[in-house]
């Protein structure tokens, strides 16, 4: 489902030097596979997810999603692939504050292959326990509820690959467990691959498959002395 090869990304530092952030030789996920990626803050894991999602253009290497090579596509083709195949759960939710809960999910779906399916969006939100909050705005919801909206939005299109960036980082233990359970459950139902990054050991412990980003990301390794 996901194959990463020789993926590299560097940024220019304020001092003008090029600093490599991501250098992943190989990484793969099969359909339905659920992997947790351990990574400390500043380890480049969000950049890694952005590169996979095509939000950022890589300096080199390949990202292939469901047979389509993301890194070889034009920007508009990457937008389409992202809308069709990916669900992205942001650490900071990134909900559209001026839109209702239902509109957030419907709008997320509208760019994908199924289009704006209000009934499905409502059902998804109902499953997240937000059926009574459809017309509320994000600011009227608790943090846990906002995160569930973000989850519903990412999963509503039945994506083949779900990327979750610290999805429980802003939640208390109980809500974190609930949110994580829902994400994993829906991914299992849709046979979607799930790549979750976190530095929370309790979250990581729930996954059978765990990888350490510091190990797979050559850029963060100490140079040999």
């Amino acid at each position, binding site marked *: 489902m996901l194959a990463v090869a020789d993926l590299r990304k560097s940024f220019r530092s304020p001092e003008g030097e090029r600093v490599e952030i991501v250098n992943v030789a190989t990484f793969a996920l099969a359909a339905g596979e659920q992997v947790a990626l351990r990574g400390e803050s500043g*380890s480049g894991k969000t950049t890694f997810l952005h590169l996979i999602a095509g939000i950022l253009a890589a300096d080199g290497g390949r990202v292939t999603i469901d047979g389509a090579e993301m890194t070889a596509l034009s920007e508009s083709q990457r937008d389409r692939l992202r809308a069709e195949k990916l669900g992205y759960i942001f650490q900071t939710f990134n909900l559209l504050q001026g839109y209702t809960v239902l509109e957030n999910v419907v709008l997320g779906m509208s760019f994908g292959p199924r289009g*704006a399916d209000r009934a499905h969006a409502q059902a998804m939100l109902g499953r997240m326990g937000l059926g009574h909050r459809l017309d509320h705005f994000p600011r009227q919801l608790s943090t846990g509820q906002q995160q569930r909206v973000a989850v519903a939005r990412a999963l509503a299109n039945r994506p083949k690959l779900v990327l979750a960036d610290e999805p429980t980082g802003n939640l208390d233990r109980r809500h974190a467990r609930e949110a994580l359970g829902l994400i994993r459950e829906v991914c299992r139902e849709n046979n979607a691959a799930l790549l979750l990054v976190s530095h929370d050991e309790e979250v990581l412990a729930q996954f059978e498959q765990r990888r350490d980003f510091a190990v797979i990301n050559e850029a963060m390794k100490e140079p040999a002395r």
Partner: protein
Amino acid sequence: MTLPLIIYRSLRQHALSTVVTAGSIALACGLLMSVWTVKTQSQAAFASTGSAFDAVLGARGSKLQLVLNAIFHLEASPGNLAYSDYEFIKRHPAVKTAIPIAVGDNLRGYRLVGTLPELFTDVELAPGKKITLQPGGRFFSADPTVKEAVAGSFAAEKLGLKAGDTFHPFHGLTYDEKNQHAETYAVTGILAPTNTPMDRVIWIPLRGLQTMSGHDPRAATDVSAVLIQLRAPTAGFMLDLMYNKQGNRLTFAYPVGTIIAELFSKISWFDRVLELVAYLVALVAAGSVLASIYNSMSARQRDLAILRALGAKRRTIFGAVVSEAAVIGVLGALAGYVVYFVLLTVVAGVIRTQTGVVLEVWRWQPVLAFCPLGMIGLCALGGVVPAFKAYRTPVAETLAPVS
């Protein structure tokens, strides 16, 4: 529903600037349409009012003053001419109809014009359009000694006159309650609206006005002007030569249409200034669309980045911002119709009161389509700059700092 939803939510989020910007567009649009309509309709209305007569004969002086006084019942009379002058031109073989008029009195500010009954029976305001009365009235008697009057519809409405009423005229063209004449006139009928300056006048027999108490008895047979219809247009040039170039006692104002057109050309600078102001307002309005959306770009960049992350294409974002600007233009244009109708109703009221010429507020004009469409296009154009900024929004940097 994606694009309409994005536009609707964005407009709602920036409701105040949307309203202010749409308001300025409405003002620009309404002003432009009003200026254009007043200009074209008033020119057409003045030209058609003058079209009932080919020429006016009057005392030596300005042709424009003569036309304004005799046909539009504006301005003071440039002077009198002898009754023999009227009889001479009436008998001229080139003249089809000659109707004398005399002015010099009023009823509470509305002019009394003395004339012959032939004005009502022989003259057509436009081909096939005769002067008619409202039900229950009749034209004043052909007997010149009878003190009867027929009121124009607008004057009757403003003065509250109806058939059977009586009144005492006042001396002069300006109302002064101390200058009341002793004569009593009876209203025999009210004219059906003609939408011409005739509506603002009270018509009495020519002889009655000439011999009104207090008038100079030496001028008791004089007339103020003669309204003329010619048998053939070429005759006008012959009479123009005879009266204006070979003679030096009278003025033959011909052709009336050209003289009215000269009036509009004299005041065309005012039209141009108004048009310029309206164009400037339109430009400022389009600029305010640009500024308002551009200024809100920083606030909405995150939303745009989220939409991009969800899979929205760059051109979708570009289209959403341009469409939003166009929708502000549409809202402004719709409100512009309200501004237009309010402005035109006020201006038409003033023009009708001052000149008797009626502008049709509800008449369709091409400018009512071109102006709003142009304004919407201009607004969409104003949206291109912020749309380009939105187009270039860096998604990853805008969404979150790199961990």
